């Protein structure tokens, strides 16, 4: 049970923040908090891959893009005027089509995002699996290169294909009705519900990962990080485990991409770029590598500030500074449990000196 | 040759050496024995300046060398055969040895270094055959020989050896102890840490016993061999009992 306390705390904090923003009239902050939550989902998934299983992935944005672009592409196909096609009739009888009126008075018919959610998860999982089997045999720089290569391929395909909108990306992505009456969309009126949807996703993800880490499989993964040969010798099917973790990370990213795309109503190639993948890696690294909570908190802080444009023209520069600074001075991350110990250690000389002084005084008094 | 006073050192939060004082005279073989985790490796590493000394003083040939960089320790004629061998795994045996002679090359030129390599090869003939094999693919014992050879290539006056017999066949162990003795006969000084306490005490002049970061006993090697405490804690039985019969 103890391991869930922190999740309960997180839930409480989420609710408190929402209430506070409402009271202070700053509900608009929820927009960026919602967007950050989706990026956090990518980060914690990557944290599992990198921090726990020790496999670097510089291609995580590629999976995010797979999720986002799959749904953007599928849900922006307009079926109006295509009532004769087999696909239309099939979808229609299954009740999977949604009719919507655009801002400009046109009527469009598109398929429900539930289909594209399924597609996004499947495509991401299958891609990760097929890619993971060969490339996860690689290590270190080689693996970094291979995953980055995958990311670049996705980026290039998105950028070079007309169906994905080339450099413009895809806009006008419809909202995603999750529950009756509640849908994922960037609409002003559904801001609060979207905030909760996003963070629910984070909590769900955290629960799954925390459980995983504390299980038999989780330990095998952690030890794999230390010594693959040893894990092998203890009967861990290391190659299979690595691939599965990679798939989990990919699915997390794709789901996040899916939700973010509906929330934003569109997606552009910048979401697939190497720079984004680097950011995810950076967040995990700065969060302390094998530290889900670190990834969560750093993901929240950095994305929230960045999305609000707090760093201005220095967005990248600030990121660079944080990266370098953290890796140099706190390679175990900001939220490492030893921080408290370190602070104590730092303060100790102060007390010591006082004690010594006292002793000296006592001596001189004698 | 080597004089240590009140040495303290350790890692981050852990203090391992708690005030060590010892000395090694020129031309002596001195050994340190002690249980696992007593801090023997830490001591040798601190002398070689791989681990930074927190307090105390190390003097080499009367010169204070506390806290100077490891390369200058080597230049001052002190070389370490590290625990766990620490080779350059993706370089050939020959390259490993040549790098051992790095300072020699720099100071005395190619010729001395070449001669040294020959000496090493005659000491461990198998290395000559393996000369162009990558060091990482050698068997454990072969690697240990390279490690010793590489340290000798620096042409040290004082040789620090950390468990040189670890993982070696008995015949090689004997050979190595013989090498150690002959090195002393050539005028070198040796400080050696060994688990094979009986064997090392047989060739050593003096010995120290280390327990959890402090030296608890000091004496002539033969005295230690006869000491009951030492016998019980470190000597055990010797396999000679088996071969003798």
């Amino acid at each position, binding site marked *: 049970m103890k391991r869930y306390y922190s999740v309960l705390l997180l839930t409480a904090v989420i609710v408190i923040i929402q209430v506070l923003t409402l009271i202070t009239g700053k509900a608009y902050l929820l927009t960026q908090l919602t967007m950050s939550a989706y990026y956090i989902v990518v980060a914690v998934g990557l944290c599992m891959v990198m921090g726990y299983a020790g496999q670097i992935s510089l291609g995580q944005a590629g999976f995010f893009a797979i999720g986002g672009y799959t749904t953007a592409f599928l849900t922006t196909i307009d079926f109006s005027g295509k009532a004769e096609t087999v696909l239309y009739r099939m979808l229609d009888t299954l009740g999977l089509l949604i009719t919507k009126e655009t801002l400009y008075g046109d009527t469009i018919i598109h398929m429900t995002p539930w289909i594209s959610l399924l597609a996004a998860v499947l495509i991401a999982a299958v891609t990760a699996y097929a890619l993971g089997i060969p490339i996860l045999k690689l290590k270190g720089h080689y693996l970094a290169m291979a995953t980055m290569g995958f990311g670049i391929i996705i980026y290039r395909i998105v950028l070079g294909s007309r169906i994905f909108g080339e450099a413009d990306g895809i806009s006008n992505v419809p909202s995603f009705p999750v529950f009756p009456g509640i849908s994922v969309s960037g609409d002003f009126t559904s801001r609060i519900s979207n905030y909760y949807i996003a963070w629910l996703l984070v909590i769900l993800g955290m629960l*799954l990962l925390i459980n995983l880490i504390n*299980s038999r499989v989780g330990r095998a993964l*952690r030890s794999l990080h230390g010594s693959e040969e040893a894990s092998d010798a203890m009967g861990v099917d290391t190659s299979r485990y690595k691939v599965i973790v990679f798939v989990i990370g990919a699915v997390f990213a794709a789901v996040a991409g899916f939700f973010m795309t509906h929330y934003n109503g569109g997606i552009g190639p910048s979401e697939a770029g190497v720079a984004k993948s680097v950011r995810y890696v950076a967040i995990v690294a700065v969060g302390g590598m094998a530290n889900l909570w670190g990834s969560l908190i750093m993901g929240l802080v950095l994305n929230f500030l960045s999305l609000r444009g707090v760093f201005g023209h220095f967005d990248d520069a600030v990121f660079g500074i944080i990266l370098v600074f953290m890796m140099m001075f706190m390679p175990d991350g900001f939220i490492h449990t030893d921080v408290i110990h370190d602070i104590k250690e730092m303060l100790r000389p102060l007390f010591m000196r006082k004690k010594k002084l006292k002793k000296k005084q006592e001596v001189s008094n004698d | 040759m080597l004089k240590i006073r009140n040495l303290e050192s350790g890692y981050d939060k852990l203090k391992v050496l708690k005030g060590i004082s010892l000395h090694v005279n020129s031309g002596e073989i001195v050994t340190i024995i002690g249980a696992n985790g007593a801090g023997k490796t830490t001591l040798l590493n601190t002398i070689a300046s791989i681990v930074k000394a927190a307090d105390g003083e190390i003097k080499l040939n009367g010169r204070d060398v506390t806290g100077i960089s490891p390369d200058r320790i080597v230049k001052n004629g002190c070389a370490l055969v590290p625990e766990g061998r620490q080779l350059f795994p993706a370089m050939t045996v020959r390259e490993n040895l040549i790098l051992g002679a790095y300072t020699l090359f720099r100071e005395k030129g190619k010729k001395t270094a070449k001669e040294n390599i020959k000496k090493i090869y005659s000491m461990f003939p198998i290395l000559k055959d393996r000369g162009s094999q990558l060091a990482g693919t050698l068997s454990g014992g072969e690697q240990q020989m390279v490690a010793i050879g590489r340290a000798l290539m620096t042409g040290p006056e004082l040789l620090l050896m950390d468990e040189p017999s670890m993982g070696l066949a008995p015949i090689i*162990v004997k050979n190595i102890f013989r090498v150690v003795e002959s090195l002393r006969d050539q005028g070198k000084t040796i400080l050696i840490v060994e688990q094979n306490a009986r064997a090392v005490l047989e060739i050593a002049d003096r010995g120290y016993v280390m327990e959890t970061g402090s030296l608890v006993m000091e004496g002539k090697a033969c005295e230690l061999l006869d000491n009951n405490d030492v016998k019980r804690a470190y000597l055990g039985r010797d396999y000679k009992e088996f071969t003798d019969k």
Partner: protein
Amino acid sequence: MTKPLNTFNSLLQIQKLDKFFGGLHAVNSVSFDVKPGIIKAVIGPNGAGKTTLFNMIAGYYTPGGGQVFFKDVLLTGMQPFQVAGKGVFRTFQNLKLSHRLSVMDNILLGRHTRGQAGFLAGMLALKKSRREEKEAEEAVLPILEWLNLLDLKDTEVGNLSFGNQRAVELARALVSDPAMLLLDEPAAGLNMHETEELSQRIQEIRDQGRTILLVEHDMSLVMEISDEIVVLNFGQKIAEGKPKEIQENEEVIRIYLGGEDA
């Protein structure tokens, strides 16, 4: 702990194993059997091919020829984890531990093959997964105690001394209740006192009914505890027999043991 059934005439059969590294014939048509419930030692000069032999048994190297059977099942061609799944566990000459993990976690890893809970069960914290965890922890404690590691169980392994790391490795190999242990130089780096302790322990392990294949250079250990010895030289088996016989074998003395203070 349950005893493995001793119904096999020989537990492990090694048949004509070969291994080449480039031009080097590191293991040259080596065959021998290991009977269940004994300690068998493999000795030989440095570079004789002992570790290579282990690596072939445990699935790390694919043999250039020959086969290994365990309980009449062919091991050759299996991945290391599959070999472990069959109940053959090993330790390493140069320790292989997860330095950032605690002693407890490292040792629990040894129980891996005993569990079934997979990713899904783990992520959803199904009852099966939690029960297995609990069982594993309970099973590990006696072994920790036996190896005097109880106090260190939450320490990061990287901070242990070499000797303690060896103990952790042994514990890790033991907790899965293996039928067979391959120990590669377990006494390297231990002093004589500790070596004696180790020899006690290895014998106790054998007395629990496990079979042990051992590579070791410490003759006091080997001669004392092994039931049978195989000697390798330049990749070839040159002798096999009881310790007594081996000690008296002149060739072994010449190439390995060394004569009397020659």
